[in-house]
């Protein structure tokens, strides 16, 4: 009996997928989550990891920022090689703004919660939306204060009931409507359990030059996922009104859209990529501010959540552009640039004599 003298080659190691900057998705992960099993925030973390990998973002460019709360703990669970700053409750926006002033080439990813943004952080939120700071601002919205064990938050719906029986009798803040009214240039709402939609809006947010606000309904399994909560999985799934289908087309990728011909609306983003909306809704234009506000009002009145890309204004300049800064980050300018000369000081002294 003859045998083949060539040894059988060992099975080839599976080829690891890398993105356009040669990184595997593993490079975008962080530490192990200490959030409750089944927490919506964990799903959002997964989507962040995938979206940043998919878009080939350099983790060295990203800074992760958060306030205080369960959602604000999550930046430790993604992008482990990026710098992070866990600030004080409600005050992540100033930290993000300051960091960007110091280095305008950074991409801040801010994670906040509905209490962090809608209660104590309401003031800073207003001014961040006005300024159009180029960053991604995610509100992981569960309508309650999970970390301090389940108090109501300002986005808790009227009439919703806590586990302990307390009923909310104040109208909720609609962070999306508020943001649009304040001048925000990218406002989207999604749901932690909607993998496809959340992934798409995240990628669109990465490409947007300005503040990209993502209000992500993220049910709290421990304190707000029960009967009577309007932010539980079951409630949201039953009342979710998806706003068209969003396919995000990064400029460096070719994606074949497999859909029946229908009217499409293409919105150009600043970096050359395009957002294509498949109109399921008759005549909805995400560039129409009043239409967005009306939609939010009407859906809320019906107890529904409009999800998807609600409003976009790609061409308004960002706050950083207004400052007309030199290209080199301010944090990296040398003394020869930042310390004026002897002649300058002498001239100033002369004028004071």
């Amino acid at each position: 009996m003859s045998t083949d003298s060539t040894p059988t080659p060992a099975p080839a190691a599976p080829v690891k997928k890398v993105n356009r900057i040669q990184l595997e998705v593993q490079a975008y992960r962080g530490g192990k989550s200490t959030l409750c099993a089944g927490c919506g925030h964990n799903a959002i973390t997964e989507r962040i990891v995938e979206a940043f990998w998919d878009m080939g973002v350099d983790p060295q460019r990203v800074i992760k920022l958060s306030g205080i709360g369960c959602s604000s703990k999550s930046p430790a669970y993604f992008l482990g090689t990026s710098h992070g700053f866990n600030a004080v409750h409600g005050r992540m926006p100033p930290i993000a703004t300051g960091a960007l002033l110091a280095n305008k080439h950074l991409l801040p990813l801010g994670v906040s919660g509905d209490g962090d943004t809608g209660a104590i952080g309401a003031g800073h939120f207003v001014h961040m939306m006005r300024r159009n700071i180029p960053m991604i601002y995610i509100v992981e919205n569960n309508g309650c204060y999970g970390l301090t064990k389940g108090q109501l938050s300002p986005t808790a719906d009227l009439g919703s009931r806590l586990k302990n029986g307390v009923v909310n009798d104040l109208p909720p803040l609609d962070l999306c409507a508020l943001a649009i009214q304040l001048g925000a240039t990218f406002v989207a709402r999604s749901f932690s359990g909607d993998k496809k939609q959340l992934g798409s809006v995240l990628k669109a947010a990465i490409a947007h030059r300005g503040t990209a606000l993502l209000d992500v309904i993220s049910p709290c399994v421990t304190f707000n996922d029960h009967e009577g909560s309007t932010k539980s999985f079951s409630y949201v799934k039953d009342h979710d009104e998806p706003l068209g289908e969003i396919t995000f087309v990064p400029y460096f990728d070719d994606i074949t859209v497999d859909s029946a011909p229908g009217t499409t609306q293409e919105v150009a983003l600043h970096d050359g990529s395009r957002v294509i909306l498949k109109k399921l809704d008759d005549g909805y234009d995400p560039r129409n501010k009043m239409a967005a506000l009306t939609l939010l009002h009407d859906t809320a009145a019906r107890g529904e959540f409009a999800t998807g890309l609600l409003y976009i204004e790609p061409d308004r300049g960002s706050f950083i552009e207004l400052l007309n800064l030199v290209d080199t980050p301010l944090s990296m300018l040398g003394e020869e640039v930042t310390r004026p000369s002897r002649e300058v000081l002498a001239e100033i002294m002369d004028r004071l004599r």
Partner: protein
Amino acid sequence: MVDNSQAPAETGARVNDFSIQVATVNGSGSQTANLVLLRSLFQMGIPVSGKNMFPSNIAGLPTWYTIRANRRGFIGRKKEVDLLVAMNAETAREDVLALAPGAVVVYDEPLTLDAVREDLVFYPVPFDKLVAPVCPDAKLRKLVRNMIYDGVLSRLLGIEMAEMEKALGRQLGKKAKAMTLNLAALKAGYEFADAQLPKRDGLRAERMDATAGKILVEANAAVAIGAMMAGVTVVTWYPITPSSTVVETLIGYMKEYRIDKATGQATFAIVQAEDELASIGMALGAGWAGARSMTSTSGPGVSLMAEFIGLGYYTEVPAVIVNVQRVGPSTGLPTRTAQGDVLSTAVLSHGDTKHIMLIPSSAEECYGFTMQAFDLAERFQTPVFVMTDLDLGMNTWMANAFPYPDKPLDRGKRLDAETLTRLGEWGRYVDVDGDGIPYRSVPGDGMPAYFNRGSGHNARGQYSERADDYQQNVDRLARKFETARQWVPGEVVDSVPGVEIGLIAYGSSHWAADEARDQLLREYGVTTSYLRLRAYPFTSEVERFIGAHKRVYVIEQNRDAQMRSLLALDVTPGQVGKLRSVLYYAGLPIDARTITDAVLTQEQM
């Protein structure tokens, strides 16, 4: 300090030793006249200061501007007013009643102030009659009117008219029409006094040579210049009296000197934030990301910043905070001076915190200490406070021309490739050198990243609730603060051997303390030593000074003896009993006579 202690030649004459107080209404254009007066004396080589007492209002309420000239360089506030210019009918009677006997009053004739008292020297001036021929446009008369008293004082006190005209030119710049009108008003006042007001008092200004090469500047501007020369790149602020002019002045200088000539782009970002919390948050975010950042505010703003300052302290992020102190608590007296934030700022925020404070006494130190604050903030990786006050910040001070820095910027312990190789591995809060100061990386520098968190952390910056991690970390922070004793500006000490009494003062109290020493010696034969604090933490000089004296008077402008409290916490317990207080906290700048009287009372002399 100039010591030209020759007695005046004529009996009763007071040469280059008087205070002039102009009582007017704010918004009436008296500022130009007052600055011309101040500058003229300065240009004649006489040491001067100008202090504005103004209401928390925009226009229409009483304001008093006091100019002190003193040939020996004592330019702190003088308790007594030697010459009152009474231009405000509303306060005129009260102003006159407050004067010491023998004082001089130049006043608007219709006020008939000479009926109020008999023991003063009165010079009535018909301002409205004099201004009409000089200024045909009735609308401008209100503004030009004040220049008439400058002309009157020029004649009465012997202030050289040529210097007045030069000072006016400097104030008005290229405004030819205003120049003509004001010059005419000056002349009208001079000629009226020459013809109608025979001199009946002994106050006189004579040329001397004590101001050559010096500048006149508000200390808020000095802070701004110091910040620019420190290479500040990010300034985030919120307006508040008496701090706003720090950043407003800085904006002017930066736009002129820190724009890239080729591109017209800025090498700085100055952002007016929505409140003080956002201001300090942005400054910390920028400092964390590696920029030299600052904010400027007053007491109420510092209160708001407490939480973020604790975060900056605990996570070790640099930032410079200028506190131009005013009277508190709460809204307090926004346009009055105090040193009332010393204690709360030293330990600002909950938990165990201690902050570096730099405490300038002069415009020149406001410049130099602000510059040094940036070095210290980055060296110690912590918020650093520059504690000035309204008296310094918003009044006009003589100063030597500010010196160009003789050392490069100190960016502190930044992790770089070489250090990383040397250390082998890196943890954000590892005390590598034993001084309590770790190495830090910043976003974008290519070094390993870390997570900055205000919650308990270990030496690697990871979340930790462990007792040992927590204690080691805060003990290291205490060690870092001890190291700062070697780096902050040390005390200025004049310790006279064998003397029982020591004076301690800080900040703007220095000028009155210095003059009080002179009064105690010349008028009462009491010799004192003097230590001037310039920073917190204190150096070992303080313990030594207190140890060398029997009774030590801590002079300060707050009610609760705040610096005395900080000293008591710091010196050995046996020394605490020696510390006594001299306090002045009514909102005006402290004066020497108050100090002298308080020391004498407590010494039972």
